[in-house]
């Protein structure tokens, strides 16, 4: 197994965190993982993205140029990275704020209304977790509980009260594409 992922969105959508949680969960399962942020002259409101590899074997290139899955949280990310999906790969689109469909027909596109679902859950910040739930449902590359363990590690015990809404967000995201 080699999952080569690109997570992209605008600064503040939590795309770097999505990638980190996935990498951490992969590590907990004993897989080889790498997480690499784009750290260029990114500006507020501009795009942020990260490359995440998860594999049963040691990882070569940490830079994902041809992705098995691309997650686009906003329109500029979709425009920039749709072409980076490998033929037959997956493209996850945040349909809450992206007003177009995938243009390619040789890939599998999934539309997830991340922001709407997050608002329904009463916490707009979990839109990224909704998308991560959809991603996990389709790729099955790590266990959802591992992602929540990773989140707890990241948040610390003091914010453990946020775990239930994040679990719900993952589940709703999975349901949106299930």
């Amino acid at each position: 197994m080699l999952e080569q992922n690109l997570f992209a969105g605008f600064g503040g959508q939590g795309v770097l965190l999505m990638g980190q949680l996935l990498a951490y969960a992969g590590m907990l399962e004993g897989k080889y993982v790498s997480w690499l942020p784009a750290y260029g002259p990114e500006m507020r409101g501009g795009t942020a993205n990260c490359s995440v590899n998860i594999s049963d074997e040691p990882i070569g290139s940490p830079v994902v140029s041809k992705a098995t899955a691309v997650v686009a949280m906003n329109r500029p990310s979709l425009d920039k990275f749709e072409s980076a999906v490998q033929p037959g790969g997956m493209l996850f689109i945040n349909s809450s704020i992206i007003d177009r469909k995938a243009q390619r027909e040789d890939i599998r596109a999934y539309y997830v209304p991340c922001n709407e679902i997050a608002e329904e859950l009463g916490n707009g910040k979990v839109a990224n977790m909704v998308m991560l739930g959809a991603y996990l449902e389709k790729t099955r590359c790590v266990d959802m509980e591992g992602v929540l363990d990773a989140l707890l590690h990241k948040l610390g015990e003091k914010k453990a009260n946020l775990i239930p809404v994040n679990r719900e967000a993952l589940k709703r995201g999975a349901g949106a594409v299930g």
Partner: protein
Amino acid sequence: MAKNLMKGCEAIAEAAIQAGCRYFFGYPITPQNDIPEYMSARMPKIGGCFLQAESEVAAINMVYGAAGAGARVMTSSSSPGISLKMEGISYIAGAELPCVIVNMMRGGPGLGSIQASQGDYFQTTKGGGHGDYHMIAYAPASVQEAIDLMQTAFDVADKYRTPVMVLADGIIGQMMEPVEIKENTGNAPKKDWATTGWKKGERARAVVNSLYIEVEDLEEMTERLQARYRQIEKDETLVECYNTDGAEFILCAYGTVARICKTAIAQLQKQGVKAGLVRPITVWPFPAKAVHDAMCAPGVKMALCVEISAGQMIEDVRLAVNGEREIAFLGHAGSRVPTAEEIAEKVLAMRGA
């Protein structure tokens, strides 16, 4: 010990602390700011010293002073900042003092970019500062290897009383990977030569100096250095040969680019092309024999050097094969990182040509 997911810069800083480094002097520059940031939080808690100097020149001279007093000491910077440190590094080499310098290479020349690059190979391996000196230079290709080499770097610096560089790039510095950091690896030898204070009759006076006015005295010092460099070449050269047995195509790359080559090799394997990689782990001393033997093996048809530069290490590769084989080059000057697909395509094109 359980693995931890760590960013390269932070892992390097912690590895240095576990290797016994208690003095860090630096000045900020992207993409290595996570190192001084980490040190500024950790050093005060363990009785160490973190000091943000007023410039890179000041920082390396603080390293010079601490090294002279026998401390395990380091600094870190990125390309333009390393250029500023070069005078100090030459002095440290001339004064025969141990220290560790981390360079998270970014694009150049000038202020260049903040993205990963390998444009400092010449500077690292061919001098950089003035005079007949060398630095041992380790080029890690993963966060774990950066940790392990960091710990080796302090030991080797002390062993040979020489500055040692860990030559990585912005990708190694910013990437997170699962790692294990061995604890308390520091085992600094007793340093009789350190300037730690002197009482009459205790020992010979310790003097830190790189000035030798008499020609004969300077020659004695440089010959001592050269003898040491020959010993380092013999004992400290590190290289990885990957998939080279029976390969018809040999790639040569170091650091992050070497990993990308491994992905290209896997892609080529799927298309029935057997390619291998020879990866210098020390770029000085350069593993000339291993590179020669991999590239000039009987079954090898072609060889390619890949770098994020206009072609720097390729000069050492060509010296190593000494005309026995043509060496092709793929690289980008500046900061554009070659992709695995691009490398595989180049190999296929060369094969077809």
